[in-house]
């Protein structure tokens, strides 16, 4: 088992190291800049990105905190709204029939179209970013929760009825636990998309945050720091994902 666990980490790490190494070589020999006919400073090497990451650490941390707050609060809104709505749709078929097609259809509206509108409505503050993160995360959470609730074994529900369970007790003791693995899958998807939502929100209008930093650096051709910012954003997504996986292991102990 231990061997297998190690292999799971070793392989992707090796691949990543190899890719970074190849990138480093391609940049330091000038191969990329030449091929693309660019000034060398526009094509930063991994080493330059790392040094930018270090030298701009306080600036990155400051802006990362802004973005992280948008992500976490947006996720929290999506969780509350998504789980609540899934429960309503599960309990009342009429609500499901009326809203489900609309919820699916709403997913065809690209968020980067909505983002500027939300900024016009809610201003430059945290509001529109929260709304966008929540909008993006709402869908996977709602759909997975609804599917999960429906996955409860009908025989177990029948059994609970014969054990004098009320509708609410069946929901709490059978349907919700049965839905948990599926809900966690939805949350994992949401956590990966949440930083993208925050970024779109910041691009539409903001005064701080990693997205804001990327816009500024892009205008000033600070390409190395742009990459550094992307690394930070990816790290945020990875850490959040790790936390969700840990939470899942603690909660869903029966799988």
């Amino acid at each position, binding site marked *: 088992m231990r061997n297998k666990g190690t292999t799971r980490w070793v392989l992707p790490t090796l691949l990543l190291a190899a890719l970074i190494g190849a990138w480093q070589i391609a940049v330091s020999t000038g191969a990329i800049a030449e091929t693309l006919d660019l000034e060398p400073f526009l094509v930063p090497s991994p080493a330059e990105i790392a040094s930018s990451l270090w030298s701009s650490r306080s600036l990155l941390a400051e802006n990362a905190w802004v973005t992280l707050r948008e992500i976490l609060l947006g996720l929290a809104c999506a969780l509350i709204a998504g789980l609540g709505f899934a429960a309503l749709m599960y309990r009342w078929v009429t609500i499901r029939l009326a809203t489900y097609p609309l919820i699916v259809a709403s997913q065809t509206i690209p968020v980067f179209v909505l983002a500027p509108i939300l900024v016009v409505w809610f201003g430059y503050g945290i509001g529109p970013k929260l709304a966008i993160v929540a909008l993006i995360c709402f869908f996977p959470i709602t759909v997975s929760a609804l599917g999960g609730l429906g996955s409860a*074994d009908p*025989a*177990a529900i*029948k*059994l*609970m*009825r*014969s*054990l*004098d*369970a*009320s509708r609410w*007790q069946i929901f709490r*003791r*059978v349907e919700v*636990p049965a839905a*948990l693995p599926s809900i966690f899958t939805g949350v994992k998807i949401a956590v990966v998309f949440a930083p993208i939502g925050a970024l779109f929100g910041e691009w539409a209008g903001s005064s701080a945050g990693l997205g804001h930093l990327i816009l500024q650096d892009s205008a000033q051709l600070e390409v190395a720091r742009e990459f550094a910012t992307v690394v930070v954003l990816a790290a945020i997504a990875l850490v959040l994902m790790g936390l969700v996986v840990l939470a899942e292991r603690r909660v869903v*102990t*029966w799988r």
Partner: protein
Amino acid sequence: MSVSIRGLGHSYAELQTIERLDLEVEAGQVIGLVGPSGCGKSTLLELVCGLLEPSEGAISVGGAGAATERLARCAYMPQRDLLLPWYSAIDNASLALRNRGLGKLEARERAAELFEHFGLAGFEQAPPAELSGGMRQRVAFLRTLVSGKPVLALDEPFASLDAITRAEMQEWLAGALRDEPRTVILVTHDVEEALYLSDRTVILAARPTRAVAELRSPAPRAADRDAAVTDAAFVAVREEAMHTLRQAMSVAPLGRNA
């Protein structure tokens, strides 16, 4: 508590699954229902327990006919153990008490007494996945008993077990019922199991389900199972039951009824 079934009929859409079934179970009696697979035995139990409403006829449990009353008086043990994997063995066993509003600790305390009695001591906190098939089945049975209902409706309680565990569990159930008699409706497709555990065994024919014969067991729930089932009188009744069952299967009309 007695169970009385009169002129029972049930159909799913066009398919008549049960037709004109009469059955009387006296209080404290164990009745075995044997029939070919898919003959509506499980449906019959769900009807008795108030999980389904009959299309025709009447079922009364202890004189009460309403589904809610039947639900309150019958404990249903489904074919699969259906232990909830997110609860420990003891929390599964005490589900009925929890559903009735008892606190977690009090419910556990009351179920714990039975754990010892059923040879499950030490496994109270174990998740169902860590229990053997026989133990899971015992926890499921415990869950049925803890509900404290006077009538037990057991649907092939040991069907999923291997032959040896099954014989052990039959002996164990016989002991449990000797100690604490209950009105039991036992559905099974195993003639020997029915004859060993029940006072009376009813042979059912399939689709629509109806009673074709009734047999009395020579020594129901004898302490020594192996001796009981090899006894000449038992073997004779078993052969008779097998014969009737085979006949019932061969003359069974094919499903559909106008």
